[in-house]
């Protein structure tokens, strides 16, 4: 199925444009200023990400060049195969719950080898888009309020991550 490919972006832009066109002048200016400040924030984020990305992409490239990624994929392939997850995503799945920028680095490296429009590329995209850094989130939220016994939080969060990966691949297979 085709999800109005390429139409979502123009539609969103058009609705933002309509918002700016059909509101009072001060309001319209306010919206445009909001866009500019958001764009500035986006650029800042991308620039701020660069040093982290340099370190992580070096490590990730080294990990791939050494054959460790391949080995990991081979080790996990029986499990991943049974769950319908492409083996190329083995490293990404392990890093995803730990760090957001590291998983971005892994995705960037993955997309340079395989097309983001391939099956594995789409699976990686949907997994990345619908999951979050589980371990980091639980650690930050709980330590902020002084939780000493997290109970089943972490196992539950990691199970959700795994289910999310399986679901993401199934959705890509069924719908795209």
């Amino acid at each position, binding site marked *: 199925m085709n999800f109005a*490919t*390429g139409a979502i972006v123009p539609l969103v832009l058009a609705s*933002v444009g309509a918002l700016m066109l059909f509101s009072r002048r001060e309001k319209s200016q306010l919206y445009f200023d*909001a866009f500019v400040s958001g764009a500035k924030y*986006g*650029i800042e984020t*991308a620039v701020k*990400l*660069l040093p982290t*990305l*340099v370190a*992580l992409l*070096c*490590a*990730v*490239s*080294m*990990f*791939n*060049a*050494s*054959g*460790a990624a391949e080995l990991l994929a081979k080790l996990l392939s029986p499990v991943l195969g049974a769950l319908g997850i492409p083996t190329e995503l083995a490293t990404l799945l392990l890093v995803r719950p*730990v*760090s957001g920028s*590291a998983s971005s680095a892994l995705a*960037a490296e993955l*997309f*340079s080898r395989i*097309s*983001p429009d391939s099956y594995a590329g*789409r699976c990686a*995209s*949907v997994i*990345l*888009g*619908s*999951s*979050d*850094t*589980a*371990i980091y989130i*639980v650690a*930050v*939220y*709980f330590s*902020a*309020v002084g939780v*000493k016994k997290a109970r*089943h*939080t972490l196992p*539950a*969060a990691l199970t*959700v991550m795994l*289910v*999310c990966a399986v*679901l993401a691949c199934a*959705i890509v297979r069924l*719908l*795209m």
Partner: protein
Amino acid sequence: MLGRVFGVLCIISVICAAVTGKISELGVGVAKGASGAVTVSLGLLGAMALWNGIIRVLEAAGATKALAAIASPVLRLVFPDAYRKKHGIAEITAAVTANMLGLGNAATPLSIAAMKALAENGGEEFAKTGRATDEMVTFAVLSTASLDLIPTTLLALRTAAGSAAPDEILVPVWICSGLCAAFAIFISRAPAILEKQIQKIKRATDGKISGKTIAAAASAGAMPDNSSNGKKITQRKRLSSPGIPAREEKTAAAQPERGATP
């Protein structure tokens, strides 16, 4: 955390390369990674700017409020204790909507505020033991599966990699996120539900002797029409078993409170 990830990746690669004899290829990998990072980052600039700009406009136009209006009735069901105590739902809604709009910088402090409110709902028991309450667990697990309506970094990464249709993954991401969020709520509550069931079974086996006579009397009266009276029997049984009336009083007490709030 990042330091650990970096360290693990580097050390494993060197060991692995030493074993497989690929050590000479590592240097090439490192050089490729460093220059690749700049290419990726530059590729991200445009798309990140565009999407974050759009999100700010939507936010200025009241998208946060609109999303909150949709999300808060659902969140009331997911966090009944916070709703009953009238403390925390506003914070949870703010955190969830910030996450939905991908306002990373705003979402974390808001989520911590929500967690603090839930911790206060935990009362003295939480303060004493530091044992996360059911709703705290649910909120944490739900946050790890939170819906991101416009995943900016992902869209930018796909654009930078030359995808023919960077936005084609949006609908699948929404579907997947929604299902994951539902599963997250279920699994975070599963132990509590299981505990309740076990207690129920225990109570049933404890009350077997006294319950038997009541059940026998009830079934004797229910003989002619068991489809409609079957429910009544269980109801009668429930009322007669110890512990349950207390819970029913509680829900009855919660009812008018619910009706009172608009």
